[in-house]
């Protein structure tokens, strides 16, 4: 059985989000006012196995490989 997961990776709140800052600034310069802008990454995974195993594996991949705990947080969602 195949299971699909979406992993959202965002800069940690306390850490400076340089990309979000640049995009926000540019939107403002172009009079597209936004209150806040943060930029992260999105990864989709497809994993073979039982629902629980696949979930654990997705969590493990996100935790150990996809995100850098020093500067990012992640969230795994079943699709």
């Amino acid at each position, binding site marked *: 059985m195949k299971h699909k997961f979406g992993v959202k990776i965002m800069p940690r709140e306390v850490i400076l989000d*340089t*990309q979000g800052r*640049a995009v926000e600034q*540019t939107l403002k310069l*172009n009079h597209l006012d936004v209150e806040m802008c943060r930029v992260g990454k999105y990864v989709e995974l497809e994993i073979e196995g039982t629902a629980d195993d696949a979930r654990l594996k997705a969590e493990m991949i996100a935790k150990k490989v996809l995100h850098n705990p020093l500067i990012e947080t992640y969230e795994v969602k079943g699709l």
Partner: protein
Amino acid sequence: MKKIGVVRFPGSNCDRDVFQYVQDHQYQAEYLWHLDQFNIHDYEGIILPGGFSYGDYLRAGALSARSPVMKSVADFAQKGRPVLGICNGFQVLVETHILPGALVQNSGLKFIDGWVNLKFENQSTFWAQKESQKNIRLPIAHGEGRFYAPQAELEKIEDCGQVWLRYESNPNGSLNDIAGVLNRTKNVAGLMPHPERAYADWMGGIDGWSFL
């Protein structure tokens, strides 16, 4: 003296180099600030220099393409006047759809600096007019220089003679070894290599001189 406009985005870093290059060619050089539109009749040509405009965040060139100065550049190009985009400037022209295709991350996933051999495929109506130079050598320095277009568009680019320059040995995975392209009317040209970094012997090469 004829005037060439050098577009300056926040994060441009070859702006001063291109300014010097233009002046050394006995043109008057003038900076064009990203937030200002300009009078298209004041300039003989426009150059978009390399660098990391707006930090290259989101996608290289993506944020710059939406700036006010690009409205004037598009207008200028539309009128058949000469525009040249070098490296990041090429990325901006592509993002603005003044030139076809897209520039994505190098296939090696790394920034690359070095010299490449190139050959001209087609002629621009203004830039690098010296016909004798079919094969040239120029420096490159980029992380997102891999030319990409969907198959159908790529064929159209080839058929319409819009390939300007090809790499002899492909450094970044560009489709069809494309290093530079032209618009349909060939007044607008863009390339990843840096002609302004090779126009004197002490720089290691002189093939960049004849681009202006």
